């Protein structure tokens, strides 16, 4: 009886681990596909390439960002998901009006801020400035109507970023 229970628990844990591994693979596949579509559009901004990119952007890619956030936030050893996401963000987001990735970045920061800060701090100057702006905007966007218990602490933590002051004063000037 005890032996059967142990086998059952082992199998259940293996299934959970497999399904999480599959999820990771799927998330990275969608990232790669989105990057590829973005590259194709950059090389040839035809109507058909735009259509393929935008269709994917607001369907598969948008849904995938939820999974990416869950994987990163729910497991201690999934930091590489956030690393991949930041890398993709820099490559694909600069010309995009899509606000969903900005919310994902801020959500990742809210659940595990230190890793996001470390990654942004390690970027080269222009990317660091860009990602600081995106993170700050995303953070004030998603906390606009939903105050967090540790909001002040999270806001203060962000001040370690080299371009925090420059970025926040720019955003305050533009504020509607």
């Amino acid at each position, binding site marked *: 009886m005890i032996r059967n229970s142990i086998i059952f628990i082992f199998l259940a844990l293996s299934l959970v681990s497999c399904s999480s591994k599959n999820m990771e693979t799927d998330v990275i596949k969608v990232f790669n596909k989105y990057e590829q579509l973005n590259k194709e*559009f*950059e090389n040839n*901004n035809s*109507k058909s390439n*735009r*259509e393929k*990119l*935008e269709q994917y*952007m*607001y369907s598969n890619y*948008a849904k995938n960002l939820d999974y990416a956030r869950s994987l990163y936030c729910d497991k201690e050893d999934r930091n590489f998901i956030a690393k991949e996401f930041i890398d993709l963000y820099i490559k694909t987001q*600069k*010309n*995009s*009006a*899509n*606000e*969903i990735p*900005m*919310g994902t970045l801020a959500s990742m920061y809210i659940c595990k801020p230190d890793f996001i800060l470390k990654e942004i701090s390690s970027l080269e100057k222009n990317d660091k400035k860009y990602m600081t702006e995106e993170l700050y*905007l995303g953070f*004030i*966007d*998603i906390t*606009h*109507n939903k105050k967090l218990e540790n909001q002040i602490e999270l806001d203060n933590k962000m001040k370690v970023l080299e371009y925090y002051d420059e970025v926040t004063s720019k955003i305050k000037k*533009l504020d*509607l």
Partner: protein
Amino acid sequence: MQDATFSNSLRKLSWKNRSWDAVSGPWGKGVLPNGVYTIERRKLTEYTTNIGNGFKDETGKGYFIPLTPIFDVGGRTGFGIHPDGNKPGTKGCVGIRKNAYSFYSAIAVTSPSSKILLKVVD
């Protein structure tokens, strides 16, 4: 089908003798560039809670309808019209500030094959 107009300076979206307070920019690369866009009627989403918070109105529901430029917008992508949820402003989409559902209703009653253009002006 009558064209819609969005004025960046007046911050008004107008269509069929009605108008809505709306904004584009100032975040990211800023306002939607002046020119003509196709409102992708066929790709209008449902009015739903199952959409990003930035696309929701005060009722907690929202929608998204893509805009395709019919001129060169310098490689910018991802434009659309949606309620302006969360912090005011967009990264180039037209964000409707008030009565966003009435715009949705007006669009949703048209035939999915309708050709509706949006003229963006200063």
